[in-house]
């Protein structure tokens, strides 16, 4: 079959005809993504009886649309109530929530939707055309390169620590030691688990995320009447549709940010084992490094919302590349999709594109169509969603508490995880009240075990030689970029102060 413009045009029309599957999946995905604890993979697992029963094309379209929508949905509570719906939205809280507190929730939501939709759309189209080349990325990204990529994310701790270096570093290292909990990657020896069997696999991410962000936020929230500042209440009460257009204008102004951060997400997504959390943290950190106004990050800067949202939606199409091109699932959601494809006897790898091009390319076209449908489905809702910030905390805090505790339970269905979320909630509460950043703790918890795993694997392969970390060309390029991204902000600050000094002298 000739895979040219006509083919893709027909495929687009065909995917549009599946809107009866895509629209409900998008709505369901946004709702599920907005509930902490209910990520795409466990929802898709629950819906396996449906996806296995229907035709493979319909099943895959449903899963793809739902998967893409969950990534967008995760940013909504992150902005409105400082609670990321998924790990990939944790970085969105850094600037999204301050915007909401200032009464600019509508703008922040539109920024999030714009970045998610156009980031996802762009990377889906790129993936469709550049699949054979992207599939090779997985071959080049070995343990050494993965260590450096994750270190990009970890350096965000230093960025957060900028306000009070000592407190930021203590929070980050506390997260890292909590992340080091559980069985080690070689001997499966349990470390620092207090003999709890439930902690043998390490600290589960969702209860940690829910505790650090959601419960601690609820505990802090009850000290005020609303989550908004006084000026924010006034601004929010006067909000009109013009605010949504203002958000759109801001997003358009940062179009380049959407493009390059979504590509960062795509490249990280292509790498098996990496995911939306890493992509979002790396994109946020890189966006700050190359920004002309890095000091605005963390105070409600539009680029701080765009970067993580574009990146975590860039991951969605990237994760499918190793699955379809090589038959290797790049993440937990892709693993569930693999089950469905195998159940229907669909061949994986290059054969898929030769024998069933309609299905192979159709998967990405469904994603494109799902993102297109998200625009009319979600953007008009921004104004009404933003009004959540006006709800008095005497109603909001108990509702948040009760539902996020269910979210902590959902992934593993252990009652223990509810207690764990409460413990993290208390840690998060103490951290917030005493000037330690909960995001720094979470970055450590998420990235710590991943860095350790890749680092130990690299050492194991090299026979214990630590110089293996500098043994590959790509790895060395990444090391150089890492050093540049760490040094660059300090260099820019020095240059600016010198320029100011000269201007004063003149």
């Amino acid at each position: 079959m000739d895979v040219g413009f006509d083919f893709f045009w027909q495929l687009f029309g065909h995917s549009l005809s599946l809107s009866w599957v895509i629209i409900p999946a998008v709505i369901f995905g946004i709702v599920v993504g907005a509930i902490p604890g209910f990520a795409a993979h466990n929802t898709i697992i629950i819906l396996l009886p449906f996806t296995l029963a229907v035709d493979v094309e319909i099943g895959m379209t449903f899963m793809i649309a739902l998967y893409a929508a969950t990534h967008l949905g995760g940013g909504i509570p992150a902005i409105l109530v400082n609670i990321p719906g998924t790990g990939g939205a944790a970085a969105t809280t850094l600037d999204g929530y301050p915007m909401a507190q200032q009464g600019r929730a509508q703008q922040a939501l539109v920024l999030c939707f714009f970045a998610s939709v156009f980031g996802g759309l762009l990377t889906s189209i790129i993936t469709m055309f550049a699949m054979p080349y992207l599939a090779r990325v997985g071959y080049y990204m070995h343990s050494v390169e993965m260590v450096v990529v994750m270190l990009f994310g970890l350096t965000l701790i230093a960025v957060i620590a900028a306000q009070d270096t000592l407190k930021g570093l203590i929070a980050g290292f506390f997260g890292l030691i909590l992340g080091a909990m559980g069985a080690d990657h070689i001997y499966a020896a349990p470390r620092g688990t207090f003999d709890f069997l439930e902690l043998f696999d390490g600290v589960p991410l969702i209860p940690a995320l829910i505790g650090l962000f959601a419960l601690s936020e609820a505990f802090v929230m009850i000290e005020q009447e609303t989550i908004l500042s006084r000026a924010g209440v006034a601004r929010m009460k006067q909000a009109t549709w013009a605010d949504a257009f203002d958000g759109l204008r801001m997003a358009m102004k940062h179009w380049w940010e959407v493009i390059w951060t979504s590509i960062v997400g795509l490249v990280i997504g292509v790498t098996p084992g990496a995911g939306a959390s890493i992509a979002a943290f790396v994109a946020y950190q890189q966006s700050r490094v190359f920004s002309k106004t890095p000091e605005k990050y963390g105070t409600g800067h539009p680029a701080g919302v765009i970067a993580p949202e574009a990146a975590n939606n860039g991951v969605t199409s990237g994760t499918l590349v190793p699955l379809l091109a090589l038959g290797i699932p790049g993440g937990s959601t892709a693993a569930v999709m693999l089950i469905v494809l195998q159940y229907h006897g669909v061949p994986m790898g290059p054969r898929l594109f030769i024998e069933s091009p309609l299905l192979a390319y159709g998967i990405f076209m469904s994603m494109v169509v799902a993102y297109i449908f998200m625009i009319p489905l979600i953007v008009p809702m921004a104004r009404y969603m933003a009004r959540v910030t006006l709800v008095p905390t005497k109603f909001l805090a108990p509702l948040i508490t009760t539902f996020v505790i269910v979210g902590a339970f959902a992934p593993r269905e252990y009652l223990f995880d509810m207690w764990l979320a409460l413990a993290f909630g208390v840690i998060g509460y103490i951290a917030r009240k005493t000037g330690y950043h909960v995001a720094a703790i979470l970055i450590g918890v998420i990235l710590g075990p991943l860095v350790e795993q890749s680092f130990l694997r690299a050492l194991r392969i090299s026979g214990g030689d630590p110089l293996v970390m500098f043994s590959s060309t790509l790895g060395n390029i990444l090391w150089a970029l890492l050093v540049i991204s760490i040094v660059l902000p300090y260099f820019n600050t020095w240059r600016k102060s010198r320029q100011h000094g000269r201007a004063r002298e003149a």
Partner: protein
Amino acid sequence: MDDDQEQTHRHRKGVGADLILPLMAAGYAAYYVYSVNDFPWEAQMNGTFIAVAIWLLVSVMLVRTALKLRRGEVTLRATGLSKPQSKLLLRITYIGLTALNIFLMPWLGFTLTVMLFLLSGMWLLGVREVKPLVIIPLAAGSVGYLLFVVALDTRLPFGPVEWLLQWLF
């Protein structure tokens, strides 16, 4: 202590609460290193490196605080955590109520504990109107039951409400 001294003491920043998290981190790091004592070096390396970094950072923090204490700039009161003082009891009670909610869930089931928690939580936070105190817990309990138990099939603890609904339908 005379009046002047007392006033100065009151104006000094209380940093006692700032030390809670570092001490927790240092304590857990010590336990972690102890727990991996007999393990192969690969299993020890990562945690030990992080633990040493934590101890160093916490030592710097303690020295910094001690110097400030000596200069009379700060006190060891935990004002950071207790502010605002007027809502301290409220916060402690709310956290306790959350713990009670989790504790009771295996016996009372998900739906009933959600309703009871919302009712008591809102009342604790100052809601006195009967309408929201009845409607919100009932609505949230029903939505929660339909979404989490029926639609998403989450195996949340069953209680009287869930058993009754299962028996009826």
